[in-house]
């Protein structure tokens, strides 16, 4: 089943109706487990295709139980390595010898997100941070939660348990309205906005040619760089809106994954606003423990800030590598790591040179702030080149533009993004005061009109296109 699609909404509606029969924890968990399994069976009925996924789950559950009973560091290390190896093997990472790959097709959809949940349980079981021992039903309910199975958001176990069985979220009229709005807006982003942006992006890529005049070439290159982050945002945040809204009807609360990422004034801030749950997971299980262990090993205060830079680099390198199985994603990881690393070094140097107060005052300067925003966006767009293009395409762009035009393109994106994003944010703030469409304080009729219009547009476009449900980029990871 594709998410989001009308089938998915119908499925979730049916689950919500059945869940509504009783609020007893056992009933809720049983229905959710059945729904999760039913959802997965929509991808394949073939036991062979489900077996590798099941194996990963079984390994994870055995690991959780082992850590609950036997908290020894060597066993924990072996278990984490085993889980990581199984994941990389099943996801066919290019560094795994190809001869080891399974010789048949099998389900990998949602595997990354399930893996994050499983690893979280194993680590927390080892650290005794789990609220209670994990039973098999709770394990299935959490790891395979169908609302966030495909592409997150990644929720921590205790947060999931709270609304799953302990204290289901209130489903009153305002929350139903907001959930419905969220689904409609998300669907609109995925089904209408993101395909249009993708079309525009493809058109700009096609328009890049040596025959075009210099100005056209630079402008098209700038658009190629700038459109993709917007496309990715519309696609992924739209999906997240739909699943968060859908989960609300099941009285589940999923965490937010985006918070206006394009207003970020630094690359480090960007990752607190973009794919928030992944960043949080990596901060919890990679950044913090790694930094702590390095600080213990090198306890000098002079080295400490540079350890932070190194750990930032490693964490974001891992984010890049996680996105795909090929060398292109290693380059993406390096660029993301370079972005946060350079950002951290710049912050340290500026604080040292200007002092904390003057640096803070500089950050408050509107022009500096706008340019920081533009630079953050441009670096994201530049890094994402390694996300969507092929090595051949990338080489073609490099040959076509040359170093001077690439630099000019980057500069143009910085300036344009600084202007557009700053003014866009100002307009959004004004609109929130005049017509706060995303606020409960706004007039209900205005919200109803807004959502109805979006819904009619979605249905109209769906009717005309008669195309399969929209593609979610992060589904592939």
């Amino acid at each position, binding site marked *: 089943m594709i998410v989001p699609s009308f089938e998915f909404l119908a499925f979730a509606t049916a689950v919500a109706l059945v869940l509504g029969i009783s609020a007893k924890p056992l009933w809720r968990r049983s229905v959710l487990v059945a729904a999760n399994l039913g959802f997965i069976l929509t991808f394949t009925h073939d036991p062979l295709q489900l077996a590798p996924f099941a194996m990963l789950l079984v390994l994870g559950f055995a690991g959780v139980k082992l850590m609950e009973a036997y908290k020894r560091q060597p066993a924990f290390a072996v278990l984490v390595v085993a889980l990581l190896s199984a994941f990389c093997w099943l996801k066919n990472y290019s560094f795994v010898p190809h001869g080891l790959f399974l010789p048949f097709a099998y389900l990998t959809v949602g595997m990354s997100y399930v893996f994050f949940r499983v690893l979280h349980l194993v680590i927390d079981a080892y650290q005794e941070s789990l609220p209670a021992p994990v039973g098999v039903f709770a394990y299935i309910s959490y790891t395979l939660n169908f609302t966030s199975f495909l592409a997150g958001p990644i929720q921590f176990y205790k947060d999931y348990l709270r609304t799953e069985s302990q204290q289901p979220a209130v489903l009153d*009229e305002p929350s139903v309205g907001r959930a419905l709005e969220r689904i409609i807006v998300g669907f609109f982003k995925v089904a209408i906005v993101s395909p249009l942006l993708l079309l525009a992006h493809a058109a700009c890529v096609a328009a890049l040619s040596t025959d075009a005049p210099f100005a056209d070439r630079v402008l098209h290159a700038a658009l190629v760089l700038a459109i993709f982050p917007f496309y990715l945002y519309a696609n992924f945040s739209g999906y997240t809106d739909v699943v968060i809204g859908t989960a609300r009807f099941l009285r589940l609360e999923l965490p937010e994954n985006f918070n206006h990422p394009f207003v970020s004034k630094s690359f480090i801030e960007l990752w607190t606003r973009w794919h928030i749950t992944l960043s949080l997971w990596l901060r919890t299980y990679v950044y913090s423990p790694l930094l702590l262990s390095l600080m213990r090993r090198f306890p000098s205060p002079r080295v400490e800030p540079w350890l932070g830079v190194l750990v930032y680099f490693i964490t974001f390198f891992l984010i890049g590598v996680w996105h795909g199985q090929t060398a292109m994603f290693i380059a993406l990881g390096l660029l993301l790591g370079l972005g946060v690393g350079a950002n951290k070094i710049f912050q340290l140097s500026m604080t040292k040179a200007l002092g904390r107060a003057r640096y803070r005052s500089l950050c408050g300067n509107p022009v500096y702030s706008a340019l920081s925003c533009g630079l953050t966006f441009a670096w994201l767009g530049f890094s994402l080149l390694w996300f969507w293009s092929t090595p051949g395409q990338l080489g073609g762009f490099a040959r076509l533009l040359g170093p001077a035009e690439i630099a000019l393109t980057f500069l143009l994106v910085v300036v344009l993004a600084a202007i557009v994003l700053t003014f866009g944010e100002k307009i959004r703030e004004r609109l929130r005061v005049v017509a706060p469409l995303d606020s409960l304080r706004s007039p209900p009729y205005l919200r109803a009109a807004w959502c109805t219009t979006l819904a009619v547009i979605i249905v109209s476009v769906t009717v*005309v296109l008669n195309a399969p449900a929209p593609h979610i980029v992060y589904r592939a990871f």
Partner: protein
Amino acid sequence: MARIRLVAFALAVTVAIVALQNFAIAAFFPHLDRLATDFSPAYLERELGGLANAPAQTIILGDSVLWGYRVRPAETAASILAAQGCACRNFSFKTGSPPNYYALVRLFQEYRIRPKALVLEVNQKALNEADPAYRKLHPTLATLAAPLLGGGDRAMLEPPPQPGPFERWLDQTLSPMWLLYAMRADIRTTLYGDPDAVTVQHPTPDLYEGTYDLTPLTEKNVGVHFLEETVDYARAAGVPVIAFMTPTNHVLLHEFIDSPQYRKNGLFLRGLLEKRGARVLDLDTAFRADEFFDNAHLRPPAQRRLAAIIARALARISHSGIAFDPQRVRFQK
């Protein structure tokens, strides 16, 4: 109460947007150069309604050859004729065949449309029982024209495929009130073009095995029957008919069609049509092999030549007022 008011308001907004869409489509949706493959009843009704209120035009009825398979809409013979000033409309479609021609003629009669002339493509391939369009109406024509056909005629045709109950219910409920839904296929074609069948770069004869039937044609053949009816109806209404035998790639299809029976069938059709007052052009061998994409579909230069041939034939119908310049297809309005 407040909740009911809010739901009613949302419904009112929906109705307002749908009304706006209906107005926009009715006012601005273009008349397509050629029908979409799955043209809708709503679009056909709109075209017929427009034609009924317009001065008489030449109507072109054919299959994928005249529809312009593998050429752009502007490159079809009908579009070239129209661009040169001929008041003509192309009602050909990919799965056109004599039963469909007849259904369309009956619809013209229903809408009180009296064409200035009727140009008919006669393709022996469509008179083969194995041809998918031999006894099958396009779903839209089955919806609109089947009730206009006599019981005997209906009995000769295959019943159209029925959509599922939900789809039928949706169609029946939404189509009358929502033009975007009713004309979704035509809108899709306008936006994205008509997807052609799989391109065959180098067609080989074996691809056409069974396509041409050399059974002697008689009036019992379903295609022949509806061809007769089409011409009879047109002639009864005083509409001149120009029928032409579909140009065919004899080099490619040599082993299937270069036989006395094929020629006999051609002569039979010619005699039948001429007896009923149609002017017949035998274009069966009029085009060279390199003018075809495959068995019968013409490349753009051949479409231009076909347009010139049709133009010449139309010019010979005295009342058309067309003067044909062989160097450049030109019409006097």
